[in-house]
């Protein structure tokens, strides 16, 4: 579906991505993990054409991204950013309606089919009831559902998300990932989500890519990636991986610094 081939990108003289290869097949749910500054967000922006790589290329359905028009890319790939800063106080409905931009010519008014697509997207994300509310006046969890609805209104084949749950409490984190998981299973939507939360990634994503200093250190099934040795090396932090007693999916436990444990043990009677 979407593929990065030998991708390199630098911000002026700072290298952010180096020779990245990644193949995402249709219908897969990928998690993109890695330490801060490892290039996760940059890779996501290269994949949807916001950033143009200096070397290598992105293939969308087998054809290079550069051979598509910008609007054609927007009809196939939707992006949910890390933080949504709305400079104008649109209603939730107007925000989702902007998701139809890639299908509309300049000065063309939205057609009935566009309004139907908006309603479908808002019903899927359970925010149809918010349609007349102003975007500045709803909570963070509600806003994120509206933003995902805007992305779905693009009726994309691929959904890219940059830490979609970064500012949400645990209930809303689960809500967002449940929604993504349902879209992936029921509609076959291909999803690639950047996540700092290894447990959410382990719980929901089928496949993971682990980035380290702009390179893909490992990519594959989540059990291969969520391995204590590999994570410990990349994050420079020892961890323990256990299966969740509830779902049986791999979960990562943080292991505090050894000296601290020893000193704590020493103090305890």
């Amino acid at each position, binding site marked *: 579906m979407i593929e990065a081939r030998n991708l390199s990108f630098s911000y002026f003289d700072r290298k952010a991505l180096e020779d990245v290869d990644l193949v995402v097949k249709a219908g897969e749910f990928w998690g993109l993990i890695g330490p801060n500054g490892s290039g996760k967000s940059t890779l996501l922006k290269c994949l949807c054409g916001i950033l143009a790589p200096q070397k290598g290329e992105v293939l969308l359905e087998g054809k290079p991204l550069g051979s598509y*028009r910008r609007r054609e890319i927007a009809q196939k790939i939707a992006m949910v950013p890390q933080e949504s800063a709305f400079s*104008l106080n*649109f209603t939730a409905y107007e925000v989702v309606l902007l998701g139809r*931009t890639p299908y509309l010519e300049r000065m063309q008014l939205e057609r009935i089919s566009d309004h139907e697509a908006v309603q479908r997207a808002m019903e899927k994300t359970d925010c149809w009831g918010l349609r007349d509310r102003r975007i500045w006046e709803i909570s963070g969890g509600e806003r994120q559902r509206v933003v995902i609805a805007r992305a779905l209104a693009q009726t994309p084949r691929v959904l890219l998300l940059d830490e979609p749950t970064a500012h949400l409490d645990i209930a809303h984190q689960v809500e967002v990932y449940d929604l993504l998981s349902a879209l992936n299973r029921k509609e076959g939507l291909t999803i690639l989500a950047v996540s700092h939360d290894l447990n959410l990634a382990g719980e929901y994503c089928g496949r993971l890519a682990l980035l380290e200093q702009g390179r893909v250190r490992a990519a594959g099934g989540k059990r291969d990636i969520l391995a204590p040795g590999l994570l410990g090396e990349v994050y420079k932090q020892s961890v323990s991986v256990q299966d969740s007693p509830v779902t049986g999916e791999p979960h990562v436990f943080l292991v505090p610094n050894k000296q601290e444990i020893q000193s704590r043990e020493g103090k305890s009677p």
Partner: protein
Amino acid sequence: MKSRSLVFLWLFALLILASCLSLVVGPTQVSLKDILHPQEAPVLITLRLPRLLLGILAGAVLAMCGGAFQGVLRNPLADPYILGVSSGAACGAAVALALGLGPVLIPVMAVAGAMITLYLVYTLARIGGRLPADTLLLAGVIAGNFFASLLMLVMALSRRELREIVFILLGNLGVVFTSKTLLLFEAMSLAAIACLLVVWWHWRDLNALALGEEVAESLGVAVDSVKKTLFVVCSVAIAGVVALAGSIGFVGFVVPHIARMLLGPNHREVLPASLLLGATLLVLSDILARSIAPMELPVGIVTSLLGVPFFVYLLQKRKRA
């Protein structure tokens, strides 16, 4: 939807009303009937009609470009002068005045000053082919300050032209057109109207930009080319207005806010509503500017005096709602 059309109807009626008032009010007695038979009142054609048209044009350009800048820079504090274009134009006009150039060359020099500023800001702000909003603002403020100081220098060195320069700085619609300057006015009007159409043409792009530049890009909007186009096109229109009417303040900042309070944030409606409201506000301000004091006041003083209380009223009303 119905109430929105009604708002536009009201705005349009208000502009017509203000226009009629502007033609009637003044030292020479003119009745409403004379408007239909202008040949009987020559003052209408020689003085008041050009003044009215200049007012409508300037108000429309300033308000709509202000709205476009606020949208494209994603900053509610932006106004048409934020990129320094008006300082450049005023500086050009002041230099022309100080050199004793004629009434045709003054607006030409003003446009030249604005274009030099535009080029400077554009070159300063561009980083690797992109035009980031923050560097654009910074470059605009720097260029604006530089040309403002240059203008002060011209003012300090000249003596006789001080009053004329003050009128350029504060804005003045009382231009007496000769056949040559009238041609210039017509050319600039046509250019400005074309510019405004281009600005409106981008309404959906401006809406998408409100979601963030990267999101707009992911929606298929060519963000950088939209920014460059609007920046250049608005600056050309603003330069023309400043060259003819001086840098009239406040209209371009406050009117888009009023339009948004009336109609919500959609640029498809905010831009044309700003056009109508800006024209009306400026025409009304001009009527006051030439009738409240024994001598004519610069219209820019009145736009602020009129605009601020109206803005405060709307803000209070919205707070209560």
